Each structure stands twice: as structure tokens, then as C-alpha cells.
């Protein structure tokens, strides 16, 4: 074992990923362990880089919306609606109230879907297979509802530039209310389970504790930040879609450990069910879309959306044609990833997959960013330099 042990012969590196049963998505983690205790952690991302930001520069806004929808398989609606909202802002129009309410409805349904999925995955990482199976069974309810109202279980495609494509019929509204009642009851049950199952609490209470100061330093977002008592929720701070008409109560916890991340997400499930009920009952009447010209005048904008995993930001620039000049997204996993590397240190190897799952990582979302090592001394590159670097790199590849 000469090559895997270091100088004192006790530490060695445990690789997790890109192929590993703990991670269903490609990411590479290296944990240096001393016995069972993690001493160092490092991460390598980029296995699922698809060049999606470049692809959308060659498409018109409608096409780009469907391409961006495929950034993520779980929170597809937030990406598509971010582009739709950005295009509307660039064109200087606003979606009609009914369209905004329907978008809000789908945001919240998607959040229920995503949090239930996360609950199962995180329980699986802890070896709590029963919770995994039950939460995924109940998640089928919400997927059936999404299929009924949108026509697909994963990529809902409910957005259009200037509004939404679907309407909620009275019958669908009844079904949504029925499903939400069921899920509310189940969510209360899961809240009891994650906060009272004693064996499970041994694995989650006091593990991966992050103080608000640390959270702010690492810039964490979403439920991870809220579980550490950081009040950060775009739905409250800068309401978009119909969140100004249907206000959200921010769910926070002060403990900052894994248990808090579980309870915050499950309590957000309850909040989402309340919100869905309110939106369905008070859906404004009116048009579904406003007319948006195909060619959008040159402008720049930034869209912020609270995705199920945290704050999602899109920068968009138009150039007067029907194709965007530049679209850049920052997904919530990247800021949260830094916290994993810090939090795992000092914990046991067995806790590492749970701490990682605690941030609800989405690898295919975050793999649009490429870190360039600066060859010149300046960290600022002009567009031409960056382009030249790309061309040289492309030609110089082996």
C-alpha cells in the first residue's frame, strides 16, 4: 500500500466520484482521512459541462427557453421562466397577472417535488431507506399533478415569452387541492419523523454545523442559508412573478446543522402547500400571454429567482435580433459547494455523503462554469483575449 499512504502511514485519500454509489451525478471529491476522520476535502467539477450558455447564443429566445429548461431535470421551470422573464424585461413588457400566478403555482409545485426528492435522497445517504421509499412514493402525487396541468412530468414547458402556455381548468384546480391536502398531511408526518426518529437524529443532529457568519462568508443560498438563520429568500427580498400578491413566510432555523436543513425543507413543503392552495383559490382572471416582438432591442438585465435549491441568477444581454447576445446563469449549487468542503473537515467519513446531500447538490446545473487559469498577470481579461484563449486552447488540445 505504498502509493496510497502518506508519510505517517495512516492518512489516505478516499475518492468519491465521478462514478460512485453515493453520487448519482458526476462530481469528484477527495477526502483525506486519518482513520475515519476527514482532514482535508477538495472538489473537482465540470464532468457534465454541456456548453449550454454558448448553445443558446445560436438560438432565438423561444428555442433558448426550451434549451435552458433542460439545464436541470428537477427545477426545470425556474430556468425556463427565468429566460421568459428576462426576455420580457428586455422587451419592456410584463406578463399578465393570470400568467404570473400560474408561474407562481408551478414554482411552488416544483418546490414540493424537489424537496420531496431531496428528502428521499438525503435519507438514502444516511441509510434511512424507508423514508427514501415513502417520500418518493408521495412525490408521485405531485408529478401526476404536474403531468395533468402541463403535459409532462419533468420538463413542464409551461412558459412562453410573454406569459404561460397552459391554463388551469376548474377540474385541475380541484385535483391540485386534493393532492396538496394529502401532501400537507404527509409533510407534517415527515416533519415528525425527521425531528423525532432517534436513530436518524443521531446521524443528523449537530452534524455539519454552520454558523450564520460562516454562511455569509461562504455566500450560501437557499434552504442551507435559512437553516443557519440567514434570512435570505428572493421570494421575500425581491418578489417576482406573483409573490407580491401571494406573500411567502420565510422559514428559518437557528441550529445550522443537518437536522435544521431537514426541518427547514420540510417546513417549506408545508409553506408551499399553503401557497399553492391560496394561488389556486385566488387565480386572477385574464389573458395568458402578452405579445412580445420577436426582435428584442439591445439591453441588459438580471433575473433573480428562488429555485428550490436557493437563489438562481441569470444575466441576459440582447442585441436587437431575435437571438440573445449573451446569457449567463449562476445556479445555487456553486456557492453552496464551498460550504461542503469546509463543513466535512473534522467529521467522520460516514457523515460526508450526508453533508454533501444536505446542500441538495445539482451537478448538471453548476457545470456551465469553466475556471480559467490566468496566464497573464492581470485577472481581468478582455472579450478578445478570452476568445483568443478559447481558440488557442481548442487548437492546442490533444
Amino acid at each position, binding site marked *: 500500500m505504498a502509493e496510497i499512504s502518506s508519510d505517517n502511514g495512516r492518512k489516505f485519500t*478516499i475518492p468519491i466520484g465521478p462514478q*460512485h*454509489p453515493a453520487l448519482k451525478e458526476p462530481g469528484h471529491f477527495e477526502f483525506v482521512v486519518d482513520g475515519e476522520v476527514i482532514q482535508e476535502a477538495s472538489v473537482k467539477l465540470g464532468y457534465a459541462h454541456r456548453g449550454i450558455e454558448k448553445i443558446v447564443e445560436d438560438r432565438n429566445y423561444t428555442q433558448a427557453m426550451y434549451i435552458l429548461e433542460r439545464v436541470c431535470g428537477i427545477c426545470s421551470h425556474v430556468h425556463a421562466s427565468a429566460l421568459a422573464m428576462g426576455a420580457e424585461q428586455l422587451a419592456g413588457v410584463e406578463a399578465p397577472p393570470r400568467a404570473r400566478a400560474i408561474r407562481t403555482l408551478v414554482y411552488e409545485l416544483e418546490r414540493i417535488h424537489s424537496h420531496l426528492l431531496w428528502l428521499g435522497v438525503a435519507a438514502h445517504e*444516511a*441509510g434511512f431507506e*424507508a423514508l427514501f*421509499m*415513502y417520500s418518493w412514493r408521495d412525490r408521485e402525487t405531485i408529478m401526476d399533478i404536474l403531468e395533468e396541468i402541463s403535459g409532462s412530468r419533468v420538463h413542464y414547458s409551461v412558459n412562453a415569452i410573454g406569459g404561460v402556455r397552459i391554463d388551469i381548468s376548474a377540474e385541475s384546480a380541484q385535483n391540485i387541492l386534493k393532492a396538496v391536502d394529502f401532501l400537507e398531511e404527509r409533510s407534517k408526518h415527515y416533519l415528525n419523523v425527521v425531528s423525532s426518529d432517534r436513530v436518524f437524529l*443521531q446521524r443528523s443532529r449537530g452534524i455539519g454545523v454552520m454558523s450564520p457568519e460562516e454562511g455569509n462568508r461562504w455566500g450560501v443560498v437557499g434552504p442551507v442559508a435559512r437553516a443557519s438563520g440567514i434570512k435570505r429568500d428572493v421570494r421575500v427580498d425581491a418578489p417576482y412573478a406573483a409573490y407580491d400578491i401571494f406573500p411567502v413566510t420565510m422559514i428559518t432555523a437557528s441550529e445550522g446543522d443537518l437536522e435544521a436543513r431537514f426541518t427547514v425543507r420540510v417546513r417549506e413543503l408545508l409553506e408551499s402547500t399553503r401557497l399553492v392552495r391560496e394561488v389556486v383559490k385566488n387565480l386572477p382572471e385574464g389573458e395568458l400571454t402578452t405579445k412580445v416582438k420577436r426582435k428584442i432591442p439591445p439591453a441588459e438585465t438580471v433575473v433573480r429567482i428562488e429555485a428550490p435549491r436557493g437563489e438562481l441568477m441569470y444575466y441576459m444581454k440582447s442585441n436587437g435580433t431575435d437571438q440573445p447576445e449573451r446569457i449567463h446563469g449562476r445556479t445555487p449549487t456553486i456557492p453552496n459547494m464551498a460550504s461542503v468542503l469546509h463543513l466535512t473537515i473534522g467529521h467522520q467519513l460516514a457523515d460526508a*455523503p450526508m453533508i454533501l446531500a444536505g446542500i441538495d447538490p445539482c451537478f448538471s446545473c453548476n457545470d456551465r462554469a469553466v475556471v480559467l487559469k490566468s496566464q497573464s498577470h492581470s485577472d481581468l481579461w478582455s472579450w478578445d483575449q478570452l476568445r483568443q484563449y478559447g481558440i488557442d486552447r481548442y487548437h492546442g488540445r490533444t
Partner: protein
Amino acid sequence: MDVLRQLLIIAIFPGGIFMLLIGLVYAWINGKLIARLQNRVGPRWFQPFADMLKLITKEEIVPEGTNKLLFELLPIVALAGPMTAALYVPMAGLRPSSSFQGDLIVTIYLLSLMTLCTGFAGANTRDRFSTIGATRALTQLFSYEAPFLLALLGPAIVAGTWQISEIITTNQGLWLVVTQPISFVIAIIGLMGKLEMHPFDAPEAKTEIVAGALTEYSGRGLALFKVGHYVELVIGLTLVAALFLGGLANPLMFLLKTLGLLLGISFLEALMTRLRIDQTVGLWWRYGSVLALLQLVILVIWSTLVS
């Protein structure tokens, strides 16, 4: 004729083919029960057989840097241990085919061979997951072995003998689960620890260290280890049922009692969160050993007072 009879005992019943078959059937029942408790369908009846057939026909890859002899020998020893133990327990409710004074101790140690082989197999390869898995497997061995032994000592002390068949005949009256509940619970949980069943499966925790000590095993070796686990499950259930649930008078009682125990085990397996290795060790040394010792002390005082 005597030689032929011995051969039959080893090859057909209760060793050999019978043990393999009943082990696979019990593995299927276990899987099915867990699935039903989790609202799933679960495997079909031939699934364990199909898995074994697949593994046996697969190419076995011996990784570089391992001792090839050990790599191939360890799975065989791991299966041979529980197979031999089958001769000393009242398998299928019939009399043990071999019996001598002290066979309880021999059986317990034959059952430990499995974990030892798993540990050695993990340490034999250079894989990092295997090494950690092996460390965890051996750590776990040292934690549950003493309480498990102490728990099984209870019935032996009451009966005043080390011979399994005599313990059963002496304790015909009241089921020992009533008089020694602590030992019974510790024996059941110890069996789960021995078999690395779910809450105690840190040595093969798949979300951390892939498959633990057996990560590098692919074909025949893995099949032998798996069958060994299944066989050991049946023997462990038989032993606990025989000692604590008033013996196994006939095949029907054998089925009822062992399957009842299996249902309980599946319940725990389906609903528990995996314990970290330090939590497992803490559980056994902090509570398991102390409680088992307490039970033993009560038993010793009681039997001295009675006699």
C-alpha cells in the same frame, strides 16, 4: 454404510445443497419482507438464484497486488465456516447430525469465520474502499462478539451444559425468551451485527465506501461470500430459535419460529438508519455488553440459589 451416511450429511442434508437452497430462499423472504414494509413489490422467488447463477458465470478478476491464493481461498473458507456449523444445530427441526460436549462454542466460532474472512479479504486487496471496509468489519467484529457470546451463554448456564442438543432438551418447559429477555434481544441484534444487516452495515455502506471489503470481488468469490451470508442467516436464526424459543421439535415449528424471527429482523432492517461505526461500537460496549453481563450475573446468582 457409515461413510456413505457421513457423505450424505455433508453433501445433501443438513450441509451442502440443502443449506445453499434454504439460504437462498431465506434471502428471498428477507428481501420480500423488506420490500413490502417499504411499499415495494420486491424480488421474485428466483431472484437470489438468478443472482448467484449470474455471479458464478461471470469472469472473476483478480486485481493486481493481491495474494492470488488468499483471494481465491478466503471466499471458500467463508462459506465453509457456516456450512460446518450447520452440522451442530438442529437444522429443520431434526436432531443435530453431530454433537459433542462444547459444540455451542465451536458453532459460535465457526459463525465468526465469515467476518474474519471478509476482513482479511478487504485487507488483502489494495483498494482504499476495501481497506476501510475491512477495518470497519473487524472493528465491528470486536464489538458485537463478546455480547453475542455472553447472550448465548445464558441458556447454557441454566442448562449446565455446553452441548446444544442437551441445552434444548433441558430447557423444554418455559421458553427462555420469558426468563432471559435481555439475552434474547442481544442475541438477535448480535446476529444482525454479525451478518452486517442494515442498521449495522457500516462495513459495507454503499454511499460511503462502495461495497466495503468486498469491493474488488466480482464473480465466483462474491457469490460464495453472499451465499455464506445467507447460510449464516439461517443458522443464526435456527440457533436463536432453538435456544430461546423452546427448541425446534419438528420442521413446521422450525419454519414458524425462524420465519417469525426473520420478520422481526426485516422490520428493524427496513426502518432503521445506518449507524456510524463509532455509534455501533458505542452501542455494543456501552449498552450491549453491560446488559448481557447483568443478565449473566443474575442467572449465575439465581442458579446458585436454586441449587
